[in-house]
């Protein structure tokens, strides 16, 4: 009964989305306010229906209803309840339903936090999001129904993929989708602007918080995916330039360019058509990513089970949405107007350079990701493109962008003077150079690349300090607290996010420079020296788990004879699927991780009580990578908390304005 209820809710949601996607648009074109006013209630009704559908699927999973095909394929009664809930989105159909839920959720949010948007703009924005919802709901209902029944019901489920039975994996898709889907708001604003033929600074001010929040969630989602790969896959790696990783990274690069471009459009009225194009591209890349992982065109560890019908459907959907938007762009972009002028050296020009660098990086990543597909389609060759290409292309492009990150916030709008920039930044440059040259020797080893990485990180830190110092010095307030609070949260958001990038760069540079990997054969009682640590293997013992058999190893980590930590890596063999998972044991530290995972038993006859191949990694500063990412996201959230966007403030302002207009005395 419950699955049918969910199915029915989805059908109703599709009908509502159809109305939501067409009627307000018609109303906006005809000036019919009654049609336009349908936007908000339609968005809310659709959200409610999709929540019901999602709840029904989740209930089926939690209740172990194996008469639902999706539950039978992806769950198991031995699975702990929180993973049964997460299994709701552990499959192609379920994750699409999550996508649809997020989309409905964002549309609902837009319908709530939009009191001060002109009704025509709001109607268009909600309608565009409704049209996208139509696509996803149709895709769900016609090709990927999560409520498909399995009759007769299975006695037991096939179990959730063991790789997904992990807290990181539970939160990673929701965060990632919040980001991907969040870009649909910026997209809808862009389309609405093109339809209306007008784009001004207020449009940018409305778009900005939505885009920044989506970007922050995407940052968290990608960081979680990377962290999960690190501790789950057992190889100590955290980024592989896998096609699906790239599919999330491309919208992120575009989103980063977009939030900077929006800043210029809001503050200076420049980059208008460019910003609109970026908003379209960011969401298009989110959709393209969805296509790539579900259609079978690329091989990846991440790819869902594939089906030609689904691939064709998504491709058609892509063609309509992206093609349609770009045709609209071709026709209307000229109308929305060019922007203000700015000098060759100015904050605008630096932000433009930032955008160009990010977009070229984006294009390179895209080329590398799709190149195997291009060659195969032309029947030329079967190749794979991996880290050597991406590393070679990406880092050199980001280097100038990192440098500009220090100069941009210090430069004036419209016209900046090079001598002034030099005066302001010369000591920051000095600090960066000195740190970059000295620190490697302190840490143990010097290579040119280490210094390059450290230079950029310290350059960002030092120039950020200088930016803040100059801001506080130039402030007319008295006293440090007053000076600090005079700055808006969005200002601190920028500083925090930029510092986050610096922290990230330190993590990447130092871990690549100083990491140590040892694959050794250890018999129980044997020790090995790795770096400045001593690792002693105490053997492997079997044990039970909730839905798996575990082989738990014990290793003692010592430094200078002193016992630091006892680590217990595991091999888990899952009961239902028979799959084996390698669970690493990690001693996390501020200055680095000590990471141990079990390989295979190498004693005769697979004797688990005998010698094992053990992988030991020393990863200095690796957690700075994810700390940096979280700082970036924090900066984004800080920026959005700015008074300018706050509901209560705007309500007060609107109320005051209304009173003024009606002639009543002002507050």
């Amino acid at each position, binding site marked *: 009964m419950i699955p049918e209820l969910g199915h029915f809710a989805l059908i109703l949601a599709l009908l509502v989305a159809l109305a939501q996607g067409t009627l307000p648009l018609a109303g906006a074109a005809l000036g019919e306010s009654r049609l336009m006013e349908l936007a908000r209630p339609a968005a809310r009704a659709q959200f409610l229906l999709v929540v019901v559908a999602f709840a029904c699927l989740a209930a089926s999973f939690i209740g172990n209803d194996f008469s639902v095909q999706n539950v039978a394929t992806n769950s198991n009664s031995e699975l702990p309840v929180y993973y049964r809930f997460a299994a709701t989105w552990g499959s192609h159909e379920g994750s699409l339903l999550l996508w649809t839920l997020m989309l409905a959720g964002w549309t609902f949010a837009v319908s709530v936090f939009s009191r001060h948007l002109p009704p025509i703009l709001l109607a268009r924005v909600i309608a565009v999001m409704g049209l996208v919802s139509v696509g996803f709901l149709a895709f769900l209902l016609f090709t990927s129904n999560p409520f498909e029944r399995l009759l007769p019901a299975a006695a037991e489920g096939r179990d959730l993929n063991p790789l997904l039975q992990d807290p990181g994996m539970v939160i990673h898709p929701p965060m990632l989708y919040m980001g991907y889907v969040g870009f649909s708001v910026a997209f809808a604003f862009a389309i609405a602007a093109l339809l209306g033929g007008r784009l001004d600074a207020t449009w940018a001010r409305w778009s900005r918080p939505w885009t920044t929040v989506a970007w922050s969630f995407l940052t968290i989602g990608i960081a979680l995916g990377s962290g999960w790969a690190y501790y789950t896959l057992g190889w100590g790696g955290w980024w592989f330039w896998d096609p699906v990783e790239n599919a999330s990274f491309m919208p992120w690069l575009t989103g980063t360019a977009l939030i900077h471009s929006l800043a210029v459009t809001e503050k200076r009225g420049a980059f208008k058509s460019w910003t609109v*194009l970026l908003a379209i591209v960011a969401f298009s890349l989110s959709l393209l990513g969805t296509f790539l992982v579900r259609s079978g*065109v690329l091989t990846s560890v991440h790819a869902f089970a594939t089906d030609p019908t689904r691939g064709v459907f998504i491709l058609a959907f892509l063609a309509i949405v992206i093609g349609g938007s770009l045709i609209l*762009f*071709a026709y209307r972009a000229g109308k929305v107007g060019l922007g203000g002028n700015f000098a060759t050296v100015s904050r605008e020009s630096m932000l433009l350079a930032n955008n160009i660098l990010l977009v070229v990086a984006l294009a390179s990543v895209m080329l590398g990701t799709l190149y195997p597909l291009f060659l195969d*389609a032309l029947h030329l060759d079967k190749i794979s493109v991996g880290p050597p290409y991406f590393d070679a292309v990406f880092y050199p492009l980001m280097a100038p962008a990192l440098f500009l990150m220090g100069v941009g916030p210090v430069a004036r709008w419209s016209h900046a003077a090079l001598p002034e920039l030099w005066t302001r930044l010369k000591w920051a440059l000095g600090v960066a150079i000195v740190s970059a040259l000295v620190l490697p020797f302190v840490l143990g080893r010097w290579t040119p690349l280490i210094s390059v990485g450290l230079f950029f990180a310290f350059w960002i830190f030092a120039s950020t300090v200088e930016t803040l110092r100059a801001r506080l010095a130039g402030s007319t307030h008295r006293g440090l607290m007053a000076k600090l609070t005079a700055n808006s949260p969005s200002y601190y958001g920028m500083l925090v996010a930029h510092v986050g990038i610096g922290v990230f760069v330190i993590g990447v540079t130092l871990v690549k420079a100083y990491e140590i990997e040892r694959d050794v054969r250890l018999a129980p009682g044997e020790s090995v020296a790795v770096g400045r640590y001593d690792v002693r293997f105490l053997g492997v013992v079997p044990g039970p788990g909730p839905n798996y058999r575990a082989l738990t190893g014990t290793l003692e980590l010592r430094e200078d004879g002193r016992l630091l930590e006892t680590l217990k890596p595991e091999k888990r063999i899952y009961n239902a699927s028979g799959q084996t998972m390698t669970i690493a044991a990690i001693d996390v530290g501020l200055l680095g991780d000590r990471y141990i995972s079990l390989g295979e038993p190498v004693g005769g006859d697979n004797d688990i009580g005998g010698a094992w191949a053990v992988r030991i990694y020393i990863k200095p500063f690796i957690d700075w990578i994810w700390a940096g990412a979280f700082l970036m996201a924090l900066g984004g959230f800080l920026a959005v908390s700015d008074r300018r966007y706050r509901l209560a403030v705007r309500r007060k302002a609107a109320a005051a304005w209304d009173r003024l207009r009606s002639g009543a005395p002002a507050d």
Partner: protein
Amino acid sequence: MMKRWRWSIPFAIFVVLLVFLWIGLGRDPSVVPSPLLGKPAPAFRLAQLHKPGERLQNEDLKGQVWLLNVWASWCVSCRTEHPLLVQLAKTHLVPVYGLDYKDKPEQALAWLVQNGDPYTASIVDADGRVGIDYGVYGVPETFLIDKAGIVRYKQIGPLTAETLNEKILPLVRELQK
């Protein structure tokens, strides 16, 4: 007019991308053709499964068209194709030689007793070195080798009746002329 063209560039790029994605849907990215096609079959000289004292080498098989089937007693998918091989052996159209890959001889022999033995002879590749030479990355795999010892076809994964009838046997007849 000039300005109009500029705004259409993103759409044009997208159309090109769309075309490639459409073509890509019809291709299978996981099918990797063997680099050995058209090249001489790598040499081997291994002990035979049924006659451990005797060795078989690829030179001995020159002058005939033959199939090399990589199998193992631990290989589950091998069971799906094995009846086809047993049937093929009965037709005497083409000799099938087995490469017993990373297996224990006692278990391999027991498996053949249980499932039937289509092989003119099976050779034992206990450590998998010959498999490496042949680019074996998944069991079962089947190679078609001609009279001159050149690899003409490689099947990755279990043989199906269609592949046998539509691809391999016609090629065999062709090469046997």
